């Protein structure tokens, strides 16, 4: 069990997401999704990747830092993202394809922002 905070979602491989990773996606489990809720510590807006770091409390109450990598900014902007979309301290819920090795990281699929707005989709990457 990864964490009580993680809702493991069996994933049908459908959808329209396109991952623009510059590296191999094999380390991510494209067949599964997990949902993590935590507090943003850093949001980097950039190319070839944007990323989010957030603190997530596990089932023992211990806080761990998660890394979530995203598509490049030049693609995210077409999906409604802006450099100002996230700031440290924001409470968010993010759905990712998790790392296969249970390390605290994943490939971004979607996010629920503090105001309830949702960005992204939960389709798989193509790579």
């Amino acid at each position, binding site marked *: 069990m990864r964490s009580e905070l993680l809702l493991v979602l069996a994933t049908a491989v459908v959808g329209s997401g*396109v*991952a*623009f*990773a*510059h*590296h*191999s*996606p*094999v*380390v*991510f*489990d494209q067949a599964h999704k997990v949902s993590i809720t935590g507090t943003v510590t*850093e949001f*980097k807006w*950039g*190319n*070839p*990747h944007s*990323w989010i*770091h957030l603190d997530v409390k596990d089932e023992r109450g211990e806080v761990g830092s998660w*890394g*979530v*990598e995203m598509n*490049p900014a*030049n693609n995210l902007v077409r999906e409604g993202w802006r450099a100002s979309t996230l700031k440290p301290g924001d409470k968010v819920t993010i759905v990712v394809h998790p*790392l*296969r*090795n249970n*390390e*605290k*990281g*994943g*490939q971004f699929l979607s996010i629920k922002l503090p105001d309830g707005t949702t960005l992204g989709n939960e389709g798989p990457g*193509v*790579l």
Partner: protein
Amino acid sequence: MPVRSTVLLVALLLGATAHAQPTKETHPPGALSPENLKKSRAAAPFDLTGTWQHELRGGPSWKFVPEKFELTPEAQKHYDAGRAALAEGKVYRDDIGQCWPPGLPLIMTRVHPFVLMQYPTAIYMIAGFENSIRIIYLDGRAHSDPDIVVPSFNGESIGRWEGNTLVVDTKYFPGHHHWLDQGGASIPASDALHIVERMKLIENGETIEIEYTMTDPKSWKGDWKMTKRFNRKHDVDIDEVECTPDINENLPGTTSSSLIR
């Protein structure tokens, strides 16, 4: 300067002039020099200037490995190591992820768009992926002397027109950190890689179709043939994209302990 030092310096200079001087390389007119551009040439059958992107869905795979192949023993070692890593959910030598250039042919099909700028004497390509640059010379020059050329990940490309087809011959690759796939079939591209591309502009100028023929006797037997298509992007610009350490050190996909380097 002391007398002894002065005498020694003069002696060294005299000695240097006594040796034969190496032949200096004379460079032909540059591809964009006015004298080269204004030379009389047949009009190009088509102009590839534009922004293009490999078909992401419904078309041929972005990968350049055929379904069946026979590798050399050295390449087979890498392939087997890659398969073993995959079986464990790991990645074997994802050099692109660690900021090495993808090189030809993968630079053409990575998901980022690329720009082509065509002149009578050359086609300049800038990829949105790590801003890799590729130049296809069309001014009639031959491949460079192998004793002069500096091998590069996109190689040296020489193009010529055959009817309505642009035929591009590319060689002179570095032979290290260069692969035919990424995170899948770990087949290395050696310094003997040779690529011939037959390019056509189809679909009313909206699609480039490229037939690839690739040989690499140090990595596989025979030639590999495949076709890729690239669609014109009307509402896309490429950006400056650099693979930098500060980005990689913050990404789970490039720092995971499941990466075998």
